[in-house]
């Protein structure tokens, strides 16, 4: 039984990971197109080069996309994490009324089809003159990223021992001091993990930005779409490879933080 299960797991991982692994060598092609050349298959060093990486890292278009992704991603992640932390604390506090309703409202952007949200934002932002502005895109991405942050932080808050807050107050700590010295340090790993996932949500987003963003605000995925549409350049593969590497680092970081937050909580038996 155990062996069958293991085989299934390995197959599952292969199914998920092979397309990604296929991309990585191809991004080092010395050719002009997205396919494995005979030289590459023969493992001839001449078939490989880093020229597409150089092309990406020196292209004003790509650099602009990276800058935009960072600006929008960090902005949206910051706002989403602050709102998400407050919401998660509120949702896990026993005294909050209508928790089910609030949870549903907060998670709505994750459930409603993205095109519907994009259309709605386009209509709303027109009057507010937010179309084609960084502010508008950061607000839109905050709406999409906040549920992710809430879910991540909420999972940790649900294990949070509210008795500690009660204890702190009897020991003479006002609510702000308690938040700073007790609540925040204990949920900090989850908050950072929430911020990372919020950033990833923004980084990944391609629909809303096409509705409300201008050309100047194009992000990495938009630039990839443009690249795919105009010429199937292996530069996209180079970007994809770098993104995979980035994602791996982020996931490892998030996982480490998650483990650390568990380690802090486990001493209580």
């Amino acid at each position: 039984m155990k062996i069958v299960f293991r085989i299934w797991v390995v197959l599952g991982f292969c199914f998920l990971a092979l397309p990604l692994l296929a991309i990585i060598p191809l991004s080092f092609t010395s050719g002009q197109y997205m396919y494995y050349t005979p030289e590459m298959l023969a493992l001839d060093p001449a078939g490989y080069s880093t020229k597409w990486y150089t092309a990406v890292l020196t292209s004003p278009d790509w650099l602009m996309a990276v800058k935009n992704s960072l600006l929008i991603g960090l902005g949206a992640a910051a706002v989403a994490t602050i709102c998400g932390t407050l919401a998660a604390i509120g949702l896990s506090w026993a005294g909050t009324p209508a928790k089910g309703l609030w949870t549903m409202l907060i998670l709505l952007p994750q459930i409603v089809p993205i095109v519907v949200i994009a259309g709605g934002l386009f209509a709303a932002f027109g009057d507010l003159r937010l179309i084609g502005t960084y502010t508008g895109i950061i607000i839109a991405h905050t709406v999409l990223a906040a549920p992710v942050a809430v879910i991540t932080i909420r999972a940790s808050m649900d294990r949070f021992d509210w008795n500690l807050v009660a204890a702190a107050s009897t020991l003479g700590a006002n609510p702000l001091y308690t938040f700073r010295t007790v609540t925040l340090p204990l949920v900090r790993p989850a908050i950072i993990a929430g911020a990372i996932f919020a950033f990833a949500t923004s980084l990944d987003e391609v629909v809303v930005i096409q509705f409300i963003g201008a050309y100047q605000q194009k992000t990495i995925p938009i630039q990839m779409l443009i690249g795919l549409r105009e010429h199937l350049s292996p530069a996209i593969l180079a970007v994809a490879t770098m993104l995979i590497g980035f994602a791996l680092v982020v996931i490892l970081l998030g996982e480490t933080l998650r483990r650390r937050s568990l380690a802090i909580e486990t001493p209580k038996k």
Partner: protein
Amino acid sequence: MSDDIVARYENVSKDYDGVKVVSDLTFDIRRGEFLSLLGPSGSGKTTTLMMLAGLQSPSSGNIFLDGRPIVGIPAHQRNIGVVFQNYALFPHMSVGENVSFPLRARRTARAEIARRVRESLEMVQLGPLIDRWPGELSGGQQQRVALARALVFDPSVVLLDEPLGALDRQLRENMQLELKQLHRQTGITMIYVTHDQGEAMTMSDRVAVFDQGRILQCSAPERIYNAPESRFVAEFVGENNRFSGTVETVDAAECSVRTDDDVRIRAVHGGHVAAGDAVQVYVRPERIEVGGAAATRDNSFQVPVLDAIFLGDHTRLKVAMPGHPEVTVKRNFLDDADDLPAAGQTATIGWSAQAARVVTH
């Protein structure tokens, strides 16, 4: 309010969604006393405690601390130490940081903090563990850290919410003595919530017995045990044999009660009884004598012995009386080991009027 009263509850009620958890509570807490709130779970004792701590607020009534009304004052401004059932130690702070927390929250000077943390930890014999983490400590040690943390800032009162509940029996008994010792040493007022009557009896100056949100009796442990004022107290604390009947005649301290099955019992009353009252008479199993002098007591009966169980330090007899199929008698082993009857025999049992207590409600 006089100086020897540290806190006062005045007509305090608390209800959750229309259910009364504490109803119309009025009582005083004396300065320096060890007061136990004893009662079954759900009797309102923890709620009573938490209203004093400021973690819950009364639905009506007033609570005074050192003469000032404190309803509406947040917990962090009350200067009351609380030891929680699960200790509530901060897992991300060392033992020293946990104990210094209340002083840091009060912006005490650094040197003063170091001195008082050391003193508190020494008081609970944990001095060497100052740099450990709560997760590395045993249950008993965590308990002591929680105590040190609740004492370090010189609170007006220390509240303890079933603090020994999670410990095993042996450790629990040691901690009871240590707590008592700590109370004597510091002279601080302690209010202790427990459902364990043994614990309440050993440690307290006074015990307040709770039932359904009310205090039924608040007095010294000896009086709770020997002079219960209500059926609930008589039956909740210790073992008791109950006879129900009607008062026939009343003297200054004693009265005669005819039970529903026509047995006449002489018993002491606490006042407020008149002939014709329906009452309960309680007799503790250890107050019933067997054989010998039993025949000369105010109340003496010939009874069949149903069962005799040897329990080492004492023997437990089950005897039958009219209308009471199982009267329990508890005899100390050394007293009359030789003349205790066996099951199936007939025995003379008896008790003095002082050993029987009339309870009216």
